[in-house]
């Protein structure tokens, strides 16, 4: 039997989560739940609170402050009151509370809640720091180990409680960006903790292989690990295999492409919801919050999946695990760099040469390091098609070194970069591939 739910005059969905207190007042005025005099009374109390807080802010030394500062303090007061009001789910009761209770009391209670949340967040961060996923993802590690801690040292609960300045690079799944201040940090940490808890069902090695499968450069990417794990697991459930596993084989992907591509949006959504329910059962997930978090990730997953199915690119969604990629085979040690004076002498000598063959012989005789060679290329002594003649005179290893260096500084757009690209277009395919592979195995650092 369906249960009856009380309908409130102020709809929660009409309220702004960032400016909760203000939006409650606005809605209450709009729906005539507050009379003009009641609203004025609340305004006056706000003003009194602002005056009191301003005096605390200036330490009683200044009777006036900049309007921007006053606005921030007022925001902070409204935020604190909002934090307390959010605790009451019945919006009608909130209006009654605003009419009956003095605003300073609501503010004080809000401040207490903020302090409680602040302590809880610190505790949560401490737990996360000691029990996080071991991964090379820089954003993940930086955010947990350094980024969030700065929030606690900078947070000003009294005069700027709405600010949430922290260096958070790691994207969380279903991030509630409309929250601010300590509420945001608490929500972020809570979700991060849930995600870690879920990912802990797998070894760090498995997660590493999954991320490696997603992208070889996963270290530098801003990706959500939980989302990748969850998506692959949902994929695994959908393959109807007996065992749910993290890996999705190419054959599984083919099967999924056939199975899912003709489904309507509703059917796909339902199928994903069912798969996530099965997943919860299989992994014995009893934590309601985690269950909710998984549920919230599904709609977004459905959109991405639909897009991938339409473009026949399921491999970007359901990933095959990949072992650690092979490390570069060659550690290149650059030759000794010549001094500036000699370098100037050589460049002017090259510039004076009439024939390219002379230029090449000088380069081969005098230049013994890749850095110097690149400097020569960028030193306005080789012109136009001469580059091709020089490249032609090089062995595969030298070209591979140049290619490696060019890919590292690709944003510089030097002339020799273009010439090298043109040269590679001209040489035969097998040699080009050989040089490309060789360049990938060289470590220039």
């Amino acid at each position, binding site marked *: 039997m369906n249960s009856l739910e009380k309908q409130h005059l102020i709809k929660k969905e009409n309220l*702004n989560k960032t*400016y909760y207190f*203000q*939006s409650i*007042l*606005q809605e209450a005025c709009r729906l005539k739940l507050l009379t003009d005099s009641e609203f004025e009374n609340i*305004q*006056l109390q*706000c*003003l009194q609170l*602002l*005056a009191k807080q*301003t*005096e605390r802010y*200036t330490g009683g*030394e*200044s*009777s*006036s*402050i*900049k*309007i*921007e500062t*006053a*606005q921030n303090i*007022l*925001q902070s007061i*409204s935020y604190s009151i909002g934090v307390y009001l959010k605790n009451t789910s019945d919006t009608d009761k909130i209006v009654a509370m605003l009419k009956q209770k003095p605003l300073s009391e609501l503010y004080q209670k809000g401040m207490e809640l903020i302090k409680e949340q602040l302590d809880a967040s610190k505790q949560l961060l401490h737990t996360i720091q000691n029990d996080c996923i071991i991964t090379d993802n820089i954003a993940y590690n930086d955010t947990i180990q350094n980024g969030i801690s700065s929030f606690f040292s900078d947070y000003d609960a009294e005069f700027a409680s709405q600010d949430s300045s922290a260096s958070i690079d790691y994207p969380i799944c279903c991030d509630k960006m409309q929250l601010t201040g300590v509420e945001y940090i608490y929500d972020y940490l809570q979700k991060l903790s849930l995600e870690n808890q879920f990912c802990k069902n797998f070894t760090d090695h498995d997660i590493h292989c999954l991320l490696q499968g997603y992208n070889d450069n996963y270290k530098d990417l801003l990706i959500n690990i939980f989302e990748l794990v969850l998506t692959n697991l949902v994929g695994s459930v959908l393959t109807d295999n007996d065992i749910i596993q993290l890996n999705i084989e190419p054959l599984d992907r083919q099967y999924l492409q056939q199975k899912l591509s003709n489904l309507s949006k509703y059917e796909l959504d339902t199928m994903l919801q069912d798969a996530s329910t099965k997943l919860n059962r299989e992994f014995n997930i009893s934590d309601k919050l985690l269950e909710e978090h998984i549920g919230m990730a599904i709609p977004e997953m459905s959109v991405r999946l639909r897009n991938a199915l339409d473009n026949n690119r399921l491999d970007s969604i359901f990933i095959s695990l990949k072992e650690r990629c092979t490390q570069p085979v060659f550690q290149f040690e650059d030759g000794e760099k010549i001094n500036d004076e000699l370098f100037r002498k050589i460049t002017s000598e090259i510039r004076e040469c009439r024939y390219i063959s002379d230029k090449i012989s000088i380069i081969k005789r005098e230049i013994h390091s890749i850095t110097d060679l690149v400097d020569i290329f960028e030193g306005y002594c080789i012109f136009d098609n001469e580059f091709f003649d020089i490249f032609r005179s090089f062995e595969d290893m030298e070209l591979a070194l140049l290619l490696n260096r060019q890919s590292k500084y690709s944003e510089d757009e030097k002339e020799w970069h273009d010439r090298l690209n043109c040269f590679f277009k001209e040489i035969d395919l097998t040699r080009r591939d050989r040089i490309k592979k060789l360049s990938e195995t060289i470590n220039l650092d």
Partner: protein
Amino acid sequence: MDTNFMLIPTVLMNKLAITEIISCNEITSRFGLILSQTDAKTLVETRSEALSSNGRIEFKGGIINKLIIEFCDSPFLSQFNYSDTLNELVETFYYFKNETLDEISDDELISLMKEYFDKNCQGSIELLQNRELETLAHNIRYGISDYANLSEDDDSSFDEEDYYE
């Protein structure tokens, strides 16, 4: 979303301020300085304008009173220029609250203004605004510890243009 839903009941605050200003006459009359009801009203208006043009907000009055009490014994004030000078001083005060980045308290700024007005400026409000207080604000902005010392031969003072070079 409109977050500035609060309006300040200025009428009430202004009335209170006028009464406070008039009450200062008891003290200033000893120096032959008296403000009429109209003068007081003008002063309050000047304060509101100065606050708004300098982007500031004030919750409790008292600045005008403090200025009156501080400046009433100045040898450069007479009934003839009293009201005009006070209006100028009110404007100057709020302008330099901003210029000094709120680094010094109301009382300190007022007492420095009085000191410069009587000594360095010999009662010239133009000199006070454009020379002394500008130098003071400059010193504060550049973190000079002895900011109130405005003597020109001081080694620690330097040109702003040099600073940017």
